[in-house]
């Protein structure tokens, strides 16, 4: 089994997880310095989920998330400096500083945003998956949400439609066990979120969210199932956030012992130990990565610091699309780089819609069964 993984894959995963961790530690520090404000929800502890998911799906699959959304785009390959600049509220940010911590959007990397209303992104993901079916594309949509979102009506309404219409969407519930300060078991009739898929006849499973390789395997399998046209999957990744709900939350609602126990499961050393044990990498490989990342994060902070605040006339942009107005390509705008993987779609009559959502014969059969005339 060990040889199933290449050195390249393991080091890529390690590099990305290490980047997320160091990036967010610096985020917390910059918050303390007053450079970052607002709510700022860190992902520290959950890195195995983002990296396991990302490496198992295609770069052009759609992806979107909730408000704990700095790390997932890093896994996609988003520019760390531009995410940091967004957190700083600067023009070099992905949204020119207009979205901030909870709203990272990087369309070039098919990351369709972080959303601040719990569960509000769940129907959006179904719509993006719907569009893929409509256009006969084989891409899937990956939607992250937290355990608490599973108690929102949006979750239940969407699962019902996603199954009924076989939408190619992978719902990843990152169960970190707390909806803000409330332990999920205290407010949930069924705290094992994935089991709720059963009520919608939806494929559902749980995975150890502290193990990047387990997440990777589970998602690879689920993505293949979805891409083959079988409909959606609900996957619960059991994970843990080492910090509070947001950077200002001391998290006194849980015991020191609990956090200490969970820290023993830290996904980053876990992956490293695995690779060393299997002889797939050497200590020096990791040291080199860590040094590189430290430098990259320093550069990200410097990049954000040097980026100017948006000018006041930005107030009047990006609310209504004016006729003929182009979409903003952040990488081109900020870095002057050519963006060639910006999504484009067939328009007008070029688009052939062949998806038959409810074949006539099937509908007539259902009518007959119900004793209705056809």
């Amino acid at each position: 089994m060990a040889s199933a993984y290449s050195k390249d894959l393991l080091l890529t995963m390690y590099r990305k997880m290490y980047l997320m961790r160091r990036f967010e530690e610096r985020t917390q520090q910059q918050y303390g310095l007053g450079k970052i404000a607002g709510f700022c929800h860190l992902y520290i502890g959950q890195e195995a989920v983002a990296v396991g998911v990302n490496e198992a799906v295609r770069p052009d699959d759609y992806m979107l998330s909730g408000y704990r959304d700095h790390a997932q785009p890093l896994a996609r390959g988003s520019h760390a400096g531009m995410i940091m600049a967004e957190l700083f509220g600067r023009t070099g940010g992905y949204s020119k500083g207009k979205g901030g911590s909870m709203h990272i959007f990087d369309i070039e990397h098919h990351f369709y945003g972080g959303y601040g209303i719990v569960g509000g992104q769940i129907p959006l993901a179904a719509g993006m998956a719907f569009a893929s079916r409509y256009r006969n594309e084989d891409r899937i949509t990956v939607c992250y949400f937290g355990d608490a979102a599973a108690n929102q009506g949006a979750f239940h309404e969407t699962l019902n439609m996603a199954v009924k219409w076989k939408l190619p969407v992978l719902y990843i519930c990152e169960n970190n066990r707390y909806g803000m300060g409330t332990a999920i078991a205290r407010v949930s009739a069924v705290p094992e979120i994935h089991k709720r898929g059963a009520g919608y006849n939806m494929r559902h499973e749980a995975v150890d969210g502290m193990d990047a390789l387990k997440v990777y395997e589970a998602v690879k399998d689920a993505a293949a199932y979805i891409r083959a046209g079988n409909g959606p999957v609900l996957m619960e990744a059991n994970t843990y956030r080492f910090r509070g709900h947001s950077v200002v939350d001391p998290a006194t609602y849980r015991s020191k012992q609990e956090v200490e126990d969970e820290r023993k499961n830290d996904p980053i050393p876990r992956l490293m130990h695995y690779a060393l044990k299997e002889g797939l990498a050497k200590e020096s490989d990791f040291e080199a990565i860590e040094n590189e990342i430290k430098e990259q994060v320093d550069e990200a902070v410097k990049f954000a610091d040097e980026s100017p605040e948006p000018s006041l006339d930005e107030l009047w942009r990006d609310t209504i699309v004016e006729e003929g107005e182009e979409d903003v390509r952040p990488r081109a705008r900020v870095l002057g780089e050519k963006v060639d993987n910006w999504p484009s779609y067939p328009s007008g009559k070029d688009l052939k819609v062949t998806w038959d959502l409810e074949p006539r014969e099937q509908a007539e059969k259902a009518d007959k069964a119900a004793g209705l005339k056809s």
Partner: protein
Amino acid sequence: MAELMYREALNQALAEEMERDANVFLIGEEVGRYQGAFKVSQGLLDKFGSARIIDAPISELGFTGLGVGAAMVGLRPVVEMMTWNFAILAMDQIVNNAAKLRHMSGGQLRCPIVFRGPGGAGGRLSSQHSQALESTYAHFPGLKVIAPATPADAKGLLKAAIRDDNPVVMFEGERLYAIKGEVPEGEHVIPLGKADVKREGKDVTLITWSRMYYFCEEAAKQLESEGISVEILDLRTLRPLDEEAILASVRKTNRAVIVEEGWPLAGVGAQVVDIIQSKAFDDLDAPVVRVTGLDVNMSYAANLENAIQPDAPKIIAAVKKVLYREGA
């Protein structure tokens, strides 16, 4: 020109736009096999199939959000609300997502979607089914809001809304669906944001939209017989408001009455008054008067229901008040 019902004009707009652009699809409760709760989508399932005319379960938040997600990646959904009363359940998706996507993404995303359905008081349906909610949506930057009165406007504005790259909220009049009027065939597109002088006059301007337009016409006819010349300005689009048209008419007649079906507090009419008093104060010969629904919940009882809504006699009284005539 063909004479069509308001619902037929909407149907024609939908069919033409779906024909023109395969990215356009319709989703909502009972839009397909049932042929539409108010028959706006009559015949569209046969024409376009179940891939594009989609019967949704009763889950307004869910299917509205699904539409928004589809729009984020280039489709052009038309989401039918069986009535705007039910859309209150979907408001999070319209307001927190659709209206804000472009801003929060710093201009990376657009959301070309139309949310449409009947609004306003129905016939004896009591509080939960009788609400004119236009001002609620007009409040939010990032949305456009339209409310056509006539079949021709309904067609022209819906076509423009479907082609617009922004989220558009469309209020149809539940009591207007069977109203008939001449509707131009084919490419009849009315730009969003343009009000329409439906009746020329010189003594007073009635500013209104949607179903209230017909009460204004009734009042205008009666006032005409008393020698009072009434201009009727149909706003048609409530966001953005056509300030130029409002000011031009007020500068011409020097008096204005605003007729709005909804409640007075924070109504669209309040904003219109602000526009007039701040930009055309010197042109006014009298304070602007508003005729609105009463500030109460809608009753089932016939006499109470009537008393709550604006009507021609209330408009006539308001016009006489701004003209300093008897009985005001």
